[in-house]
């Protein structure tokens, strides 16, 4: 038991680089810089706010604060949300117009926090990915796979998201 801990510590000591949160959206693994993340909570009840875009699910109560809930699967993979017991809300801290905003994104499950050194990150291929390239910052090498690292500014574009839904007819 103690050996395992030592191994882990050694691994952490060897690896010095930024931490990333790994999580699933629709069975696809994504990574996001941990420094943007303020907390991860169980998905609370969401109250719909009318006239907003479909990906904006509404607002929820996180310990007395009202926080917007975003379904990024909607535009990342053009898929509908599939909620399960493992669904979680990852609260992000985003600086916009000089103020830090808290926004929650719904994920299907959280995997772990991992350190990636710069040599483990590769440039995003310009085509061939199942989602729009602008949302991906880089690709991380992880257990023999490539995991897309999300670009926070593009995934949570507050200005674009706050525009009203265009209602036809």
């Amino acid at each position, binding site marked *: 038991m103690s050996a395992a801990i030592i191994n882990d510590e050694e691994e952490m000591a060897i690896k010095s680089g930024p931490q990333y949160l790994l999580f699933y959206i629709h069975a696809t693994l994504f990574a996001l810089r941990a420094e943007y993340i303020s907390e991860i909570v169980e998905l*609370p*009840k969401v*109250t*719909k*706010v*009318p*006239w*907003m875009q479909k990906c*904006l699910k509404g*607002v*929820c*109560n996180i310990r*007395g*604060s*009202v*926080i*917007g809930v*975003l379904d990024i699967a909607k535009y990342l993979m053009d898929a509908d949300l599939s909620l399960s017991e493992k669904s979680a809300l990852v609260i992000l801290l985003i600086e*916009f*117009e000089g*103020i830090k*905003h*808290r*926004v929650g994104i719904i994920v299907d499950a959280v995997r772990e926090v991992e350190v990636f050194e710069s040599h483990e990150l590769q440039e995003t291929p310009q085509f061939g990915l199942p989602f729009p390239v602008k949302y991906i910052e880089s690709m991380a090498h992880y257990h023999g796979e490539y995991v897309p690292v999300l670009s926070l500014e593009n995934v949570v574009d*507050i200005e674009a*998201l*706050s*525009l*009203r839904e265009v*209602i036809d007819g």
Partner: protein
Amino acid sequence: MSEELHYFNEDAQEQLQMMESALLDAMDKGVNDEYIGTIFRAMHTIKGVAGMFSFEEIISFTHIAENLMDAVRNGKIVLDEALLMLLLRCKDHVASLVESAVASTSLGVQTQDEDTKLKELIHSYLSAPAQDRQNAVPIQTQQTQQVDGAKVWHLHLLLKESFFDTGMDLLAILSYLKKLGTVRSIEAELDKLPLLVDIDPFIPYMSFSIDFESDADEADIVEVFEFVEDDIVLKLQVLEQTQLKLEEPKEATQEAIQEVPKNVEKQPNIEIKKQTPSQSLRVDSAKIDLLIDTISEMVIANAKIARYVEQNYDADLEEVSLELETLLETLRNNVMQIRMLPVGESFEKFRRVVNDVAHKLGKKINFTILGGDTELDKTVIEKIADPLVHMLRNAVDHGIEMPDKRLEAGKSEIGNVELRAYPESGSIVIEIEDDGKGLSKDFLMAKAISKGLIAHDTHMSEMQAYQLIFAPGFSTAEVISDISGRGVGMDVVKKNIEALKGDVELSSVVGHGSRFTIRLPLTLAIIDGFLFEVGATRYIIPLDMISEVVEFDTKHQIQMDKSNLFDLRGTLLPLLDVKEFYHEKSRDANARKNIIIVKYANQKMGMLVDELYGENQTVIKPLGRLFKNAPGLYGASILGSGEIALIFDIPALFEIVNLEKE
């Protein structure tokens, strides 16, 4: 900015504001002792406080200005119109000195020039031979007047070695003391004074015994020595009391500290002197915000208890919870009250603006402020100032005519501009009214057409036409006048007001004047709300915007073209179907429906909703930047269950509905 520096800044601003008010009052109503005292004290206080920070420029300037005011106080210089104007400049100059001291930047060339110029001007006053001293306005007035309860105080004043380091002149302090009453005798004690060969000229050796008759209380007298309190030893005793002698003969030499309260008790008629420092405390407004946040959380927590009580039928706990609710409401109101300030103080600052503009344009203006004691949240007061200044400038510049034109039109040559504030159903209304030339619908429309804002053949109601003035691109005048045209249009004014959840409208009668009406919400944090449900979502409306609630009956609904109307006891009102408006799905089509009649700014409308839940103490939380464009919503509130309810922005809703009508 350090806390001390912050307080210095606030203190200085406050003193300068008082000085300006006194100067303007003196211009309007004539000079009196009180105004002179205020102006003197402003310079004196700023000098004293600046001394603690060694702000040399401020000290040197205020020192000279103080000397000038001292000469005025002593009747050596007459405070005439020209000198009042000079003092206004001095006030402005000190403001820039304070600004650069606080920002720790060096003085700009202009400020330095002004410094030199003003100092020269003041010196010319100070060194001018005391002309017409006989004719001078007798400024010293009734200082020896006896007031009921006047006492004879015995002061013993010992100067510490450090006294001369303060830079304060004891003689100035003593002459200030004289303002509070009559010095019966003053005796210098010279026992400790060394011979000239032994004396250190930088150390004071004298102490003073002063018998002083005054109705001032101890605090007043101690305050005189405020700036040197660390460098003196002051002893105060009441020697005799002119009124109480018969009743209290044995008290003759008792210490004043014990004497004063007794005295006050026995003589309720004692006039409280103006100089008494008011019992106030400066608190950083962020601390109050924190307090309000905490109370908000407590309100939510108590709502949870109430919910638990309801589910578990716990009568004892219910009683406690209800008591807590009452206490929290009291607490909330008290804390909110701290944030509320009368608008008058802020409004006073505008007199200067109006005066300056009128002066520059050669117009004559009688500026009136009404309802200065109307209270408004401090933040709102601060943010509304700029829009108001702009509108007042406009009123003087574009509204009021030149004196000759006014006479031609059969009006008095003095134009009237009135600024007033009053509360109205949960809002505060601020109005700016002038009796100038007014604006016609045709003029506004013609201008809007020429600017390409509306089409040639647009038809508009009078009210719509007046709103054109707030359209972007409308009020940027062709000739940018020095006064109003600073690149800011009325559209910016409207935007600023809307950012405060308020609105503004214009009404006008050609030849008789114009009136701007601004409505602002009273507070920003907690409101009494009314909770109800539409579809699956809960909503809240501020209670004081609801005029009544009625059960919905289809036979009262009237469909006309596209708009929905309903008949409320013979009055037709627009009806907003919230479900349809927000594309909500119906939970139960057969559920009972209700109509909430909301009112705002002389308008009424009905809102079709589902279930009603009743009153709710609503803590307003922002929805966040993502929902900035959510139509008709003000914010959100967290209910006792932890669920979120959305708060309607009724003024915005009226606007949306009015737009849809067009």
